[in-house]
């Protein structure tokens, strides 16, 4: 295949929440920013992105509203809610714990 990594189960939510920390975005914007921030490593299949967005919205971590994009198009913007911010913090520390542990195991000689 190519150089892109498959996302670990559960990490997509964390990444989406991260992109939204920086401000509201529409779906395509989220996918673009993910690609940029990961230097094209994460190209989230949009078939996974949108279900994830609706799942997060359903859980109340993000909310959506229709607005006009910088390109002048009608688009649905996603915003992080207060609950979403808390969740992001929790998930991020979880991830760091996990990633650090994996790293230590791999570095062990």
């Amino acid at each position, binding site marked *: 295949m190519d150089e892109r990594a498959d996302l670990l189960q559960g990490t997509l939510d964390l990444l989406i929440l991260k992109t939204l920390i920086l401000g509201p975005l*529409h*779906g*395509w914007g989220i*996918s*673009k920013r993910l690609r940029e921030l990961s230097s094209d490593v994460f*190209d989230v*299949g*949009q*078939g*996974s992105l*949108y*279900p994830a967005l*609706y*799942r997060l*919205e*359903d*859980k*109340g971590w993000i909310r959506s509203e*229709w607005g006009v994009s910088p*390109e002048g*198009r*009608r*688009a*649905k913007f996603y915003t992080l809610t207060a*609950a979403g911010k808390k969740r992001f913090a929790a998930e991020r520390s979880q991830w760091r714990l996990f990633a650090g542990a994996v790293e230590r195991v791999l570095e062990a000689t």
Partner: protein
Amino acid sequence: MSQWMQRIARRIRALLHGDAVDGDVDAEIRLHLEMETEELMRAEGLPAAEARRRALVSFGGVERYKEAHRDARGVRWFEELTQDLRYAIRGLLHAPAFSVSAVLVLALGIGASTAVFSAVDAVLLSRLPYPHDDQLVRIYNQSGPTNRWTLSTVDLHALEEQSRTLSAVGALRGKRVAVSYGSAAERLPTGFVTSGFLHALGVRPVRGRTLEARDDAVGAPPVAVVNHRFATEALGGDASAVGRSIMVDGVAHTVVGVLPAGVNDLAGVHAQIWASLQLEPPTRRGPFGLYVIGRLADGATLDASQRELVEISRRVFPLWSAGFQDSTAHLTPVSLRGDLLRGAGHTLGLLAAAVALVLLIGVANVAGLMLVRATGRSREIVLRTVLGATRGRLVRLLVTDSVVLAVVGAVAGIALGAAALELLKAIGPDVPRLDEARLDLRTVAFAAAAALFAAVSIGAYPVALLLKRDAAPALRDGDRAVGAGRRSHAVRGAFVVAEFALALPVLAVAALLLNSFMRLQRVDPGFDPERLVSIHVSLPSGLYPNDSGDTSVRDYWARALPLVRAVPGVASVGLGAALPPYDWGDFNNFDLVDRPVPPNTSQPVAPWVGIGDGYFAALGVPLLEGRLFTPADTGVAPVVVVSRSWAKHYYPDGSAIGRQMISGGCTECPHTTVVGVVGDVKYDGLGGTGDAVYAPVTEGWPLDLNLFVRTSVPPAQVVSRVRAALASVDPGIPLNEVVNMDERVYESIAQPRHMTALLGGFAAAAVVLAAVGIFGMLSYTVSARRREIGVRMALGATGRTVIGMIVRRGMGHAIAGAVLGLVAALVGTRWLASALFDVNATDPLTLGAVTLLLLVVALVACWLPARGAAGIDPVEAIRAE
């Protein structure tokens, strides 16, 4: 918590505004694809079309995404349900021939079985309308396993005084008697009952009092309890009825109570008036004739009561042995419910079995149709699978199809069932409480269960196919892949075999009943029913005392008969206590002097018909031997005339004339002598024996007699004048029971006629369904193998060979089914034996004929599609694929 509530609110919004939300999703995807396309054009310089294609590819399955999205919203199940329903209904509407026939078949099957179920429910499954109905028993005299008869006053008193296992015992003697109130008089069904009868049943009047023990005593003022209808129609309402005096059988009775509305039957006996039965102290063991019921005491079992009653019989019967010698006889209690339903279970069971078979054939038929339909849709289903529909979703789609069919079938079936139930009540079997059958919740539940069964049966196989199938080969092979497969052929074939196997027993039963009915119809009733009417004359005992020395009854007839004979148009007149072909009037036991029964066994019995002068002439019964009665036969030396069957039965080798017998167990009475032999008349139904003994009414005039009038002109022109002649003798006697004897003969076989018609209808339905099933299977085979048939014909096969090939395939199934059905019929029809007249339940001719008929129908159903196959143009058929 509030978050949780927001979530619910969102879901409700999604549910309510599903379309709007879907629109949002569409817009969002559109935007995403546009942005991606532009990005690709800008960043990589791709042409618009290519950029768009890449964007789509990178997005993944749009439809799958939408589904996943709805899943995330948690409302998918609901949306999909309505979607499946919409889809199923649209699909069914697009195939109206399939849908209409499937719904029709299911509706007929469910409707007929629902009607029969409600009859079974009302008659067999429901309880009797009395408190603790399981405690109620009927009591018989029994000797030997099948010989049962009613009780006498001696028996009743023995039970009343000695039984501990019965908490209440009561007797009934029911008859139609003249009842007059105010100025009106009519003959009404009346039950003369002891107080224990009402007490045992636990029936209480809504007004006034019930019968009490003091009313049973001889000489107590006669009282009666009446039903609500009589109180309303004759006595001006419940309130004014109590205390009124009515004449019952010529005796003044005071109405003391009124039964609740709707109580018209007690223990299976219909009567409007329940008058106190006052039994004279017995002088001998007989006569019998009392209908006795009892209630088991709390804690007493039927077995315990049975043992006790045998004990009581052993103690009491020897005291009365002078008039009754059968020492094996004993009193025996049986469940009242079982007694009332005796016979009904058999009749309704037959109907239920037939209707269940027809329902099964119908379901097998629709299942076959569904399979063809699933086959036709196989390309669509494969396409859906490739496009990403999940297996579960497809299964639901197919299941919805069968559920919609079954539900529509059930709803139509319930409506049909209501109509069918009315039909069943009107012409159906003569079983108690059928009139109480109605469509209620239980019936609807039954229809729902039948529909569920139908849905599962017709939907199961297409779903099983779907679950087994691998999508890719199916797509490659095109739309024949499912239905034309070996397996599904085998399943369709099995359905057809099953249809024939189920149809044959139904057809066999109908044919046996028809055969039996036609034989019954040809039976000679023994008299000429044309232009013969009977008028029932019941002289009230109050005015015609009829005890020793009283001649009032004889005098009445001595005055009436000449007046009737003088009416213009009257050819001849006769008097008889029986009303053929199905009312023998009286039964009597006898012991032949020259060949008495062994000691301590029961004596033979026969219909014992009291007749007056002119009876045989009026009915057209020939004298075969000896003489008829003369005015000199007054009982000093009792004489009887016997029927030819009786004479052959007891004196097969010689003449019966001059033989003597002890009649009615009266050993002290003078012997009775046979003086004549006449032709057989049926008194026990056309299917019954011709045994009968005739005694002259001059030996003891009965109060109830039928006046038979043979007319030389149509009877309708004569009857009113005959009635006027009778009324001129005593105007107070109701004469409303006039019977045209030809109608009576016709009515006597109404039961078998109706059962034959009902079963004939079921059989016709079964045969048509089986024929349609095999026709459908072969039509489909022909269309699926069109190309192969074309190739065969191109290679030189003639139309004949093609027809032969198709017909052989169909007939193989039909014959296999018929053979299975024949085996089932041979086992099953034995059960029918008691309902058949003069036909063996395994009559080889009948069974052979129905098998042949079924196979001929199958042959026609096979030949039609085969002929179509022979007409296939090989060039066209091969090119078509």
